């Protein structure tokens, strides 16, 4: 036995236009009549009727309406070529800026005194730089054993942050901006 549902019987009116209408049909017919008279009333049958009419005799688009569509499209859409050019231009500018930073950075580094020069510069200047030291002072608490999950990363983060601060301070000191 098949599970397929039986198709519904065809309505009598399909082949007999003079079959007496039901109440629902009368209501739906009146709705269609109203919707055909007023396009603002939503009605699927009226929409299909209008689609049939437009397919049979499509109305031309008014010149000014078309001009407005063209102008809107030209104003809002950007040609891809232009987008590529802009993107390429931005990328080039970023690359140039990065190259400039790299070169200037090197020049700055070249200008920055090396360790030997710093030693020669005397104790005052060297004393103003952060000394090489153990990381022990960064940790008051003893290392837990066994190590808890993520403990090593947290320690490394703390060291990295402290040393990044030292590096920054050293640089400012060397460049004379502190």
């Amino acid at each position, binding site marked *: 036995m098949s599970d397929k549902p039986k198709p519904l019987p065809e309505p009598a*009116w*399909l*082949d007999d*236009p003079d079959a007496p*209408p039901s109440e629902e*049909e*009368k209501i*739906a*017919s*009146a709705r*269609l*009549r109203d919707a*055909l008279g007023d396009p603002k009333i939503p009605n*699927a*049958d009226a*929409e*299909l*009727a*209008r*689609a*049939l*009419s*437009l*397919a*049979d*005799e*499509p*109305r*031309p*688009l008014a*010149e000014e*309406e*078309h*001009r407005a*569509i*063209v*102008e*809107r*499209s*030209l104003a*809002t*859409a*950007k*040609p*891809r*070529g*232009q*987008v590529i050019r802009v993107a390429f231009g931005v990328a080039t500018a970023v690359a140039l800026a990065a190259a400039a930073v790299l070169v200037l950075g090197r020049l700055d580094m070249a200008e920055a005194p090396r360790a030997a020069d710093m030693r020669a510069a005397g104790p005052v200047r060297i004393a103003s730089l952060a000394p090489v030291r153990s990381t022990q002072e960064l940790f008051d608490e003893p290392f837990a054993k066994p190590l808890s999950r993520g403990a090593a990363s947290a320690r490394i983060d703390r060291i990295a942050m402290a040393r990044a601060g030292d590096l920054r301070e050293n640089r400012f000191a060397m460049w004379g901006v502190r």
Partner: protein
Amino acid sequence: MRGARSGIVTAALSIFILPAVAERDDATKRARDQERAREETRDEERGLVSRAQAGDKQAMGELFQRFGPGLYRSVLLPRLGSEAAAKDALGETYAKVITRIHQFTWQNVGFYPWLRTVALRVALDQLRARKRLVVWEEDDVARELDAAATTTPIDQQVSDRRDRDAVRAKLTRALEQIHPRYARAVRLRVLEERPREEVAQMLEVTPATFDVLLHRAIGALKKKMSEDAEVES
């Protein structure tokens, strides 16, 4: 005797042969002129496309002004079945053309076949999104789209005529499948847009009965179109 014979030959030449030769020459000249005019138009169009590809908005606008109205009327409006949807689709087509015109390669068949293909793709996307019954089904447009690149005539007027003929043939086929009385009601009221009372009179029913008749006619048409769409898919 000989003089009379040569007179007959001369008369025959002047009556039958010379006008025919002149007519043939005229036709050849006309065809040559038409071909030259077509080539000039094509060259101008090619120039516009090149300028548009280089980012010239004015040239792009001229291309749209030249092909847009026909595209709207013969391609988008019949397939989408609503003026608002067709206008949206036209704007979307233009936006796509602006961003993709660099992909277009001139192949001596003009700009229109490519433009029509872009428009059909936009129409197909709209039909897929809407799921509302119109004369053209998604699959119809998808099939057209497959064939568009190779079958769209170079001349937009020829293409437009072919598009409209195809729509009318589809409508006629659909109407032939429903009860002749329903088909007549649809033809008179919907296609010919005659007033309700006039059509009721022509069909020899009251206006209220005609309302029911038209409602049933649209219902029958919808049913047939849905069945056809199911069979085709």
